């Protein structure tokens, strides 16, 4: 399928106009910046409605088959739609585990029945999906998952506990990594991958209160929960491989994801704009030489990441340590985000000690909450310390 530049340019204009037109007004409460921050029903309903609207307009799942709610279009269109969503800073497409993990996986390796059953309802946000990989005792060590799935006739019986289940309390389905064989020599080989219903007996969720004081994750407890045997994806023992496969969809629509905006980018520019008029030591905070130096550093960090993506796409300029920019991306981004948000609190002066709920808090306490939430990225998906090990070992070839 070949797409002309002209088509894409016209499409960009169209979607840009739509986003501009339909970008929701401030609802009067803080919206989640990421899909890990959907803490209450009010936020959930708002985002469900928004996602449905984007899909209905034709800007979500564009590259998915028409039979399953998509449009069968070239992924380049979805990439453009995603860019425009980001550029217009519209709310997130919150059903990320469905859109970016479970959905593309089902599209790739699911049966026709599974596709019919799940895909469209992911796009419309009728079905919310969650992810059951992490366990309490194995934070950064997914391969060591201990939740058991035992085959019993036409069913699997699940026992165990998952943690950091995003929207576990709202979700209809979970992609579940569970151990079908505890006796394999390599721990990875005993894992299997399930599309597991949440609203059944034996599955309980308990919301986790985050350090922000809000919610967004649950613990999920399985107690003799029985799921149909055909919830298994692939074969028993392929769980680790399939789980790793889901990670490739992070690379966007070209890789099979439905698209949408996973998080609202918060830029240094946003911070700087917000600082106009703030004073420190009786002068404009933006005139303070020390703070200016810090802001320049923050701009440089952000710019170097954007430039890094561009450079990473040019093989001749990435030859020293290939994979370096790719493998260090999460580490760089999450750490620089954390630092920048702390800076944003510091710059507020005494108002930096206010929090969400105070009517005089700057932007409703946005930056304070954003700083606290930034640890989800420096901890979740492999802590920065583990990420650094990965870069050291896989990029630099340093010993384990």
């Amino acid at each position, binding site marked *: 399928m070949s797409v002309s530049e002209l088509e894409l340019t016209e499409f960009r204009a169209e979607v840009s106009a739509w986003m501009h037109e339909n970008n929701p007004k401030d609802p009067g409460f803080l919206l989640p910046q990421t899909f890990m921050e959907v803490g209450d029903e009010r936020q959930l309903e708002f985002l469900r409605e928004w996602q449905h609207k984007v899909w209905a307009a034709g800007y979500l799942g564009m590259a998915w088959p028409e039979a399953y709610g998509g449009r069968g279009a070239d992924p380049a269109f979805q990439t453009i739609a995603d860019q425009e969503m980001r550029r217009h800073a519209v709310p997130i497409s919150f059903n990320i585990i469905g859109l970016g993990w479970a959905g593309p996986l089902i599209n790739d390796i699911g049966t026709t029945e599974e596709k019919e059953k799940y895909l469209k309802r992911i796009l419309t946000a009728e079905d919310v999906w969650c992810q059951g990989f992490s366990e309490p005792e194995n934070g950064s*060590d997914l391969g060591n998952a201990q939740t058991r799935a035992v085959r019993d006739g036409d069913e699997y019986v699940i026992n165990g506990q998952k943690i950091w289940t995003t929207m576990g309390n709202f979700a209809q389905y979970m992609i579940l990594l569970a151990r079908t064989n505890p006796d394999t020599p390599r721990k990875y080989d005993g894992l299997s991958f399930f599309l597991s219903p949440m609203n059944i007996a034996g599955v309980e969720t308990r919301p986790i209160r985050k350090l922000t004081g809000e919610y967004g994750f649950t613990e999920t407890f399985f107690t003799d929960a029985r799921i149909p045997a055909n919830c298994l994806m692939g074969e028993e023992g392929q769980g680790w491989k399939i789980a790793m496969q889901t990670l490739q969809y992070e690379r966007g629509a070209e890789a099979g994801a439905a698209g949408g905006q996973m998080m609202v980018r918060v830029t240094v520019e946003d911070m700087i704009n917000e600082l106009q008029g*703030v004073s420190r030591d009786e002068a404009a905070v933006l005139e303070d030489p020390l703070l200016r130096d810090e802001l320049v550093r923050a701009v440089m960090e952000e710019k170097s990441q954007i430039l890094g993506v561009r450079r990473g796409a040019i093989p001749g300029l990435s030859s020293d340590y290939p994979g370096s920019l790719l493998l260090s991306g999460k580490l760089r981004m999450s750490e620089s985000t954390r630092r920048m948000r702390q800076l944003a609190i510091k710059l507020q002066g005494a108002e930096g*000690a206010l929090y969400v709920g*105070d009517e*005089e808090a700057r932007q409703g306490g946005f930056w304070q909450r954003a700083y606290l939430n930034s640890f989800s990225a420096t901890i979740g998906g492999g802590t920065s310390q583990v990420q650094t090990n990965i870069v050291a070992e896989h990029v630099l070839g340093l010993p384990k």
Partner: protein
Amino acid sequence: MIIGNTTLTLTEEQGMLMDVAREFCRDKSPVSAVREQLDTELGYDAGVWKEMIALGWTGIALPEHCGGSGLGVSALVPVFEAMGRALLGTPLLTTSLAAQLVMRAAGAAQESVLADIASGKIATLALTEDADWGREHFAVSLDKNGTLSGMKRFVPDAAVAELFVVPVQREGELVIALVGASQLPDGAIRPNTLIDETKRAANVDFTGVRVDENSLISGEQVANAINDTRLIGALLVAAEATGSAGACLDTIVEYLKTRKQFGKLIGSYQALKHPTVDILIDTDSSRSFIYHAATVVGDETLDRDGEIACRMAKAQATDTLLQAGDRAIQFHGGMGFTYECNAQLYLRRAQWSQQQFGDAQHHRTRLAKLLLG
């Protein structure tokens, strides 16, 4: 010499108070008790506050003839360090600062106010008017009829304060108004929501409150008294932050010694171990600075050494706690991301502390002036 005064001593009284305060705070303010107060209106246990009064802590730094112990600010440092360690709130901090301001600005002329405070009256210092703690001029004013107008912000423990000590402008002159809680009209107090849930503060609108001459402190010593109270505020918050940093370090160390990942105690990983040593070293520096300040700050107007000492203490202690709190979350991993984990208590305290009486950079800028001219 640019390094200046480097004395550091501990008097017998300080040492005794340190022991008593540590034990009291450990007993009365285990983290379970701290958590119970997080979403109460008061923010502290009234019974514990009464015991603190009974121990004489509200009078430690006040003259003996007012019913105090006459031990000066230096004796408050170990007390606030202990309170910070236990995250024990209560209005002691703002009451102590309000008392310092009255004592330094009025002395014997307001002896009865000081006596009331020494015996347990809750006072608060209503200093700040906007987000800029570097601002030295007040917009809240007193007109010639003795009527106040304007709002103070971030007034600590305003909801329980019986007495508001309020620096204001009266026709170009700095004066201090003493306002009783009963003088405030309904709705004058609007509580803040603070990031540190162990602390309480509010906006207080003084507009329309009338202040009689007996409740006014004026004179040329007022400006110095306000400056010194800002510095002492910085010092006491530094002492509190140092205690909190110490407790935060303990929390990290405890987790690193018990949590396993990839089959090993996580404390054996240098990626966690070495930054934890950095926190220890910074906490050591903080402690040295606060006790040095406790050594050189007395009841008299602060000299250059005293100012340097207070500013260094605040710059060091709040930066230390910011780093300790941040790393505490990170090193607790997923657990650290929960409200249930105590790491967040220190991180939130850190954010609050840095914004009291100037952040580290504010103080370093002033120090540059003092040290380098």
